[in-house]
């Protein structure tokens, strides 16, 4: 679905690449790595927001290296939302689509319905992320790029949103590329995992292939994830640098 061949992207003085990897259609792929590695830059290059300086980028088998963002059919959700301040929440969410009914339905699904009509400046960080998510989803893109989209949400909301999005992804067959530095979350949501280090992207060992995150909770022993694997429930403790 998404293929990068020796892609080089410049962001000011910072240069990412050459990077090569592929993302298969219809799956949820995560991309982890330390801060400053260039993950956001790569996402922007795939969305067409940032210019590619070298290499080739293919989407759906077509070379769209220099195609305009509005020709790519790719949605992107930024870490800080990047909402339009002159529109209210509803204006933002319905921006990309004429079908306001489906946008409203999506808003309800992701718990953003109460935010309708609120002005952007009154929204909290987490609320902005929800609005940004609905805004991108409203266009029903077949490729969705997520850049740390849940970071400002409280834990309960974070897991619920993740689950809901995962469900939606399965329903629509949307291809998701999810950048996060939360390994546990990556493991729980994604079916394929890429790791980025010093500008190089490698496949991470695929584990928990068919895992599905049920919820994230904490008890006396610490935080843990409740995950459904192969039909059964498993409890996975969350630890720093968890790679399992």
């Amino acid at each position, binding site marked *: 679905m998404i293929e990068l061949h020796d892609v080089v992207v410049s962001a000011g003085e910072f240069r990412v690449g050459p990077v090569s990897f592929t993302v298969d259609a219809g799956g949820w792929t995560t991309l982890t790595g330390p801060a400053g590695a260039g993950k956001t830059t790569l996402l922007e290059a795939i969305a*067409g927001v940032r210019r590619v300086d070298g290499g080739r980028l293919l989407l759906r088998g077509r070379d769209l290296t220099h195609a*305009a*963002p*509005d020709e790519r059919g790719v*949605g992107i959700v930024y870490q800080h939302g990047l909402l*339009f301040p002159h*529109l209210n929440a509803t*204006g933002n969410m319905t921006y990309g689509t004429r079908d306001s009914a489906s946008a409203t339905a999506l808003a309800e699904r992701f718990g953003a319905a109460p935010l309708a*009509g609120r002005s952007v400046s009154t929204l909290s960080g987490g609320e902005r992320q929800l609005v940004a998510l609905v805004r991108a989803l409203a*266009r029903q893109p077949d490729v969705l790029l997520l850049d740390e989209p849940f970071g400002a949400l409280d834990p309960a909301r974070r897991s619920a949103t993740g689950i809901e999005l995962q469900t939606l992804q399965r329903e629509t067959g949307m291809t998701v590329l999810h950048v996060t530095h939360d390994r546990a979350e990556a493991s729980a949501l994604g079916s394929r995992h890429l790791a980025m280090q010093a500008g190089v992207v490698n496949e991470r060992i695929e584990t928990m292939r068919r895992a599905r995150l049920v919820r994230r909770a904490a008890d006396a022993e610490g935080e843990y994830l409740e995950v459904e694997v192969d039909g059964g429930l498993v409890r996975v403790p969350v630890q720093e640098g968890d790679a399992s």
Partner: protein
Amino acid sequence: MTRRRTHVMATVLTIGASCLLLALLLWPMVALQWRAGLTGVRLLASDAELRSALALTASTATIVTLVTVLLGTPLAWLLARNRIPAPALVNAALELPLLVPHPVVGIALLLAFGRASAAGQALASIGVALTGSRWGIAAAMLVVSAPLYVSAAREAISRVDPRQEMVARTLGDSMSRAVWRVTLPQARRGLLAAGIVMWARAVSEFGAIVILTYNPRVASVLSYDRFTTNGLDGALPVAAVLVLLALVPLALLRGLRAPSSADADANA
């Protein structure tokens, strides 16, 4: 020096300097209105020549401003987004008319578009003459005031995060649609202010206009005319009325800066 004395001295200097500057700016205007303001307003009723001069000035300035907004806003956007290949050259082209003495601007326009020039002859073939016509007034007004608009518009647009345009594009907008739906609404107040500044500048122009068009007379030319024929008593009321006319855009500007909240109108 102790901190407190420094502070006091700084305050005194600041207030003193501000008062001095404000006095220098306001006093002549007050003196003008005191001497001739009432006469000028009364003249409006009886003096058809004055009325038509004011109407000509205001209408031509308005048309020129609208044209500049149309032509200059895209240029301002290109400049703000650094999409101009030789920005230094373009900026110089924009700033030059502001630095050149006004009669020289008029003469330069003559050289470029006058009867004796190639461009002028082309214009003549479609019935447009630069001198002695409203076209001359418009051309002079445009050259001296359009740079003000483009600069200010560029500033207003650059204050809007360009990434928002990009986000809009990922949501399906072409570049121009994105600018129209996202950037311009947010730059709206700055653009409006820029237009008003430009209009005020166009209305007050004299030197560049008079070279090209003496008849029909704009208000500034009329006031100079009245000075020559009627002396101060003839010129001051016209000048006073012109100043009052200029208060209109000032009032509009103030209305813009009034507390309209910086956030969302519910439009999409």
